[in-house]
């Protein structure tokens, strides 16, 4: 049964994606390290780090896609899970600084010395060990999502209400992490990292390794997501997305299905955050901004939700656009992002991947001799829960649920 699930998970698309990511994990750092600068094919170190960052974003978008695209939960709290994972990693990196900080205190990070703290708070204990930090990276976002989701889904908080309370959670965490006496560096967050696993963070080899780790982690996430959505559970998730009450009446425990997706997704977001921090070199409360969480949604929407490859494309494309615009035309970026939100929701409800699918469907329709393919396409669409009539028929507003 397990082998079957594995085989199913690695359908053609996912297999390709995993293969590409693994290839990238090897090729990009190699192109940076093996090929000397100036020669064709050399990848500068900043590009490696930049794309490493994009891949963590892609992982985050994929995590959101698992709950939003497949389970219909629009979480505005994924930025928080991402940041929590990031903080766990940041705490490990802070402890690795040791006595190389400005105040040269072997135990306390600089900001604690600055705040006149005498000893390490209990929740910083253990973060000098990588295994413990790694455990926390998974546990903290996972537990938060589990507890939050357990209560929220059990009392059937759905739709917009869930979005708003996840946003409230993010906002509460933002305020909390801004406080100096929380012991997480307050406004400035955690930065000035020196070593990770004994290697200097700034070194080209470390950066290459981090990129490879990110790509592999993303490949793993793709694998996990693909396995989930192709399983029977995945079908139930899609059923929950499309008709929650009906699924419940059929006898499924909707809340547990949702809780599973939400928790797995939060863990994935946390791991993405943990990989993000050593690459950008800082984590601060700004990562908790509710606006960030909404931005993740647009990456997913642009790429195409309800698909595995969509969010990855979306996150990379939008963030490349962001890097370009904020550098070249800073005033224009918010217009572009805003317009992207409006445009995608109005004209591209299925994102880039959906658009490609439509084109393919159109070109297929021109080939008259393949009726089977069209049928497959229709049932495929139905499987994704998209009622073909919703886009054609006149949409009607619904009062608040």
């Amino acid at each position: 049964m397990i082998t079957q699930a594995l085989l199913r998970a690695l359908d053609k698309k996912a297999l390709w994606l995993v293969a590409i990511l693994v290839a990238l994990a090897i090729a990009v750092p190699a192109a940076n390290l093996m090929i000397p600068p100036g020669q064709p094919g050399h990848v500068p170190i900043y590009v490696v780090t930049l794309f490493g960052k994009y891949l963590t974003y892609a992982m985050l978008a994929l995590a959101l896609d698992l709950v939003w695209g497949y389970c219909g939960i629009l979480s505005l709290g994924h930025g928080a899970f991402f940041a929590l994972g990031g903080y766990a990693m940041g705490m490990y990196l802070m402890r690795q600084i040791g006595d190389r900080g400005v105040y040269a205190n072997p135990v306390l990070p600089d900001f604690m010395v600055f705040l006149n703290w005498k000893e390490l708070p209990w929740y910083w204990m253990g973060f000098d060990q990588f295994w413990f930090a790694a455990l926390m990276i998974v546990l903290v976002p996972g537990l938060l999502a589990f507890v939050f989701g357990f209560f929220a889904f059990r009392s059937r908080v759905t739709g917009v209400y869930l979005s708003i309370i996840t946003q409230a959670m993010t906002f509460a965490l933002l305020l909390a992490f801004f406080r100096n006496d929380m012991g997480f560096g307050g406004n400035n967050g955690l930065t000035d990292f020196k070593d990770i696993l004994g290697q200097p963070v700034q070194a080209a080899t470390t950066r290459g390794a981090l990129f490879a780790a990110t790509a592999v982690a993303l490949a793993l996430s793709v694998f996990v997501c693909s396995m989930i959505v192709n399983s029977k559970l995945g079908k139930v998730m899609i059923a929950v997305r499309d008709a929650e009450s009906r699924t419940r009446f059929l006898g499924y425990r909707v809340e547990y299905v949702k809780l599973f997706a939400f928790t797995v997704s939060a863990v994935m977001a946390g791991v993405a955050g943990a990989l993000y921090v050593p690459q950008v070199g800082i984590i601060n409360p700004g990562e908790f901004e509710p606006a960030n969480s909404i931005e993740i949604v647009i990456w997913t929407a642009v790429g195409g939700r309800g698909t595995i490859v969509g969010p990855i494309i979306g996150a990379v494309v939008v963030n490349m656009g962001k890097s370009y615009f904020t550098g070249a035309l800073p005033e224009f970026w918010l217009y572009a992002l805003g317009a992207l939100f409006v445009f995608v929701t109005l004209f591209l409800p299925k994102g880039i991947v959906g658009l490609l699918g439509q084109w393919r469907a159109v070109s297929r329709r021109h080939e008259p001799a393949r009726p089977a393919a069209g049928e497959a396409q229709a049932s495929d669409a139905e499987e994704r829960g998209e009622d073909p009539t919703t886009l054609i028929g006149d949409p009607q507003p619904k009062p608040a649920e």
Partner: protein
Amino acid sequence: MRPIRSLRLLFALVGLSLTLLAGVARAQDVPGLIEAMGEANLRELGGIVEELAATGDSTVAPALEALADGDLYVDEADGRVVIVTRNRMYDPVTQTEIGPAGDADLSRIRINNSLRRDVAAALGSLTLMSDDPTVRLSAARSMRANPTEENLILLDEALAAETNPSVRGAMETARAVTILALDDTSLEEKRAAVPVVARNAGREAITILNAALGSAPEELATDIRSAIAGLEQERAIWAALQNVWFGVSLGSVLLLAAIGLAITFGVMGVINMAHGEMVMLGAYTTFVVQDVIRRNAPELFDYSLAIALPLAFLITALVGIAIERGIIRWLYGRALETLLATWGLSLILQQTVRSIFGPTNRQVGNPSWMSGSFEFYGLSLTWNRFWIVIFAIAVFTALLVVLNRTALGLQMRAVTQNRRMASAMGIRTPFVDAMTFGLGSGIAGLAGVALSQIDNVSPNLGQGYIIDSFMVVVFGGVGNLWGTLVGALTLGVANKFLEPYAGAVLGKILILVLIILFIQRRPRGLFALKGRAVES
């Protein structure tokens, strides 16, 4: 010690009787007496002070005060006596400025401690007996500060003659304070003084009583303690009331920001993330109106808000209708997607405003009737907060009237309850949607005008309110304006009551956590729609 005190007492009495005698009989030439101070030695000076006190004329008070403070000088050039403060010379009688003190050859008129006390006594009697009730009042109040036996005698004298009730009250208080502070007053007197102090001494009462507690015998001490306990309880009640007011004030701001959102959310199920930007547009409308008024007709400044209100309503309502017709109507039935599209819109609106007006805060002034504060019993209220509370109530009532008494309101309620049925009955639901969205946005614009009076007008203004507004709507529940009212006030008051214990930030975090927990109990808010509309 004792003989000296009795001597001084005698002296004061003499001064007093002289004062009483004074008036018409020994009306002296005040400027002449003051001029004489210039050459007088200490003893002569004592005589002059007596005589000045004897005139009963309150115009000599400044000169005496200056003498006691060492600000009275003689100009050696012409022998003139002047008051010098902050390096400028003033006439001791008329208080008019003579000129800078820099060049003049001045020497201070020296006095010793006993003379200084005489001057204080003379001043007290002068002012306590003044014809002007306000002078008497301030004299009685100032006597609380340095309780001496002379003051006690003076106060007794003055009380005997006093008829003005408020001045009498002040004198009685000063007398009670003095009795409590002196050592050789009797226990009965002191016990009688305690309630007087507790009742009348206002904010200082607890300090005064605590000071008296130190040396009090047991009998008196219990009296004082119970008086202090009573005062502290009273103070706690007022502090709580003040907190309630702060809470109501915050709640009314939340109400203004959230009520438009509640309408659009309730009627159309649309999460309008650009709602905060409507508030911002309203605030910028106020800024533009004030700017135009400042340039063209500054005398109209006090009416700027009255002009800005309808304009802000119109502008934001039109923007809202444009948004509804242009974007939102294509997304009905997909609430989560409207959330994204309106978020995108909010980014565009923010950036537009930032491009036009710049990223920094814009100065929006308070009209004169909205600045300053006033006291209401023990509460201190600022006018702008006060008017915003009134305004929020007015907007709320107006909205109730619109929803319950107009055709549009009827249609809106019908559409909220059952869209398809309403449509079947011939209500043009798209028109109602557009109007609802316009109304909701227009109210956000009105909120913007109000918020421009208490908050920074910057492109990020709306962002700060959007999450709070959502909390209010989610907490209060949709489909009922009263839910929004209760939600806003509850959150406001709860926030202000948590603040002293937890601090502003932690208080807010607690509120957010409480709302998240509350939603678990009631997933549709306080005032949820019941029946079929719940699950559609």
